[in-house]
Every structure is written in structure tokens, then in C-alpha cells.
């Protein structure tokens, strides 16, 4: 069931954001309930403030977030991602 949720989250984010990089980590074991850490790198975030980026992800996963206990995200542009890697 948990693996299902992970793949649903991955599929939806991939379809919505065509990410350059996507990392969905299941951290349920560290928490008491279904929990994920997500890093998403997409050109669709370019020129948008953090709040708006997070709103985009929240609305993409609106249904899923109802049953996810903890969800943390990092939303980066490809440029920010390159900078962070170096």
C-alpha cells in the first residue's frame, strides 16, 4: 500500500512538472504514519516565489495529501539545483 502511494506521488509529480530531477523518499519508518520527503527540480518553478511553487505541488497532490501524515518538499529550478550540487 505504501509503495503504491510512493509511485502515485512520483507519477503525478512527473506528469505535472516534467522534472529534471525528482527524489521521493519514503520516511514512514521514521514517523508514525505515511510520510515523504520530496525534492523536485523543474523549469516550471522558474520565476515563481517559494509559496507559489509549494502551492503548485500541493494542488497537484491534493487528493494524496489528505492521507499523507507528513510531507516535506524542496522545490528548485534547474539553475538552483546546479548551484546546490557544486
Amino acid at each position: 500500500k505504501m509503495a503504491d502511494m510512493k509511485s502515485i506521488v512520483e507519477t503525478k509529480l512527473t506528469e505535472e512538472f516534467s522534472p529534471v530531477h525528482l527524489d521521493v523518499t519514503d520516511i514512514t519508518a521514521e514517523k508514525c504514519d505515511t510520510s515523504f520527503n520530496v525534492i523536485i527540480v523543474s523549469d516550471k518553478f522558474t520565476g515563481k516565489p517559494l509559496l507559489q511553487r509549494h502551492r503548485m505541488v500541493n494542488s497537484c497532490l491534493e487528493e494524496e495529501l489528505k492521507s499523507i501524515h507528513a510531507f516535506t518538499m524542496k522545490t528548485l529550478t534547474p539553475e538552483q539545483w546546479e548551484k546546490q550540487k557544486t
Partner: protein
Amino acid sequence: SAKWDKTKLDSLVQNSKVVVFMKGVPAQPMCGFSNAVVQVLRMHGVDEYDSHNILDDEDLRSEMKVYSNWPTFPQVYVGGELLGGCDIIMQLHQNGELIEELTKVGIRS
């Protein structure tokens, strides 16, 4: 609900330069995410801010989700506008932008 209509929530978020809706109270946060926000504010010398314990008020909890169009807590309002939840506050803290956001409302950290 009648208890928290838009006008009341408007004045709630505008009552102080920084307003936090969280699980627990600053002296005793009841969730790691709320705690992280409290710690970051403390690090920036933001000592005086309004906080509301959404665990104590189920109506406020549900109304704030709608009002903010934001699904989770904590929610941090600066200058009457939603700045973000824990992730955003942490990222703004790490990249230095939180100082700018606080400066905009006259808080020097």
C-alpha cells in the same frame, strides 16, 4: 463557521507583524515542524509574535486551511500575508531571504 469568518481571520493575521498558527505553543510545541519554526524565529530574535494553538480550536484549524488555501500547519504570517509552512521558513532561513522578509515589516534580526 460563524466563530471564524473572513473578517475575524483577517484581523487575526494582521494583529501582529508575525503570526504563527501551530500545534502547541512556542514554549511547548507539540510537533517537530512547529518546533522548527519556533526555533528559527528565536534564532532571528523574533520574540514577540502572536501564536495560535490549532490543537485547542478545531474550528480555527479547519477555517485556517480554507482561509490560507494551505493544507498543513504550522502556518507563518508576516505582515498579514502567508509566508509559508515549515519547509518554506527553513529554506528562507537557509538562503538568507528570511532576514529580508522580516526587514520588510520592520523587524531586524
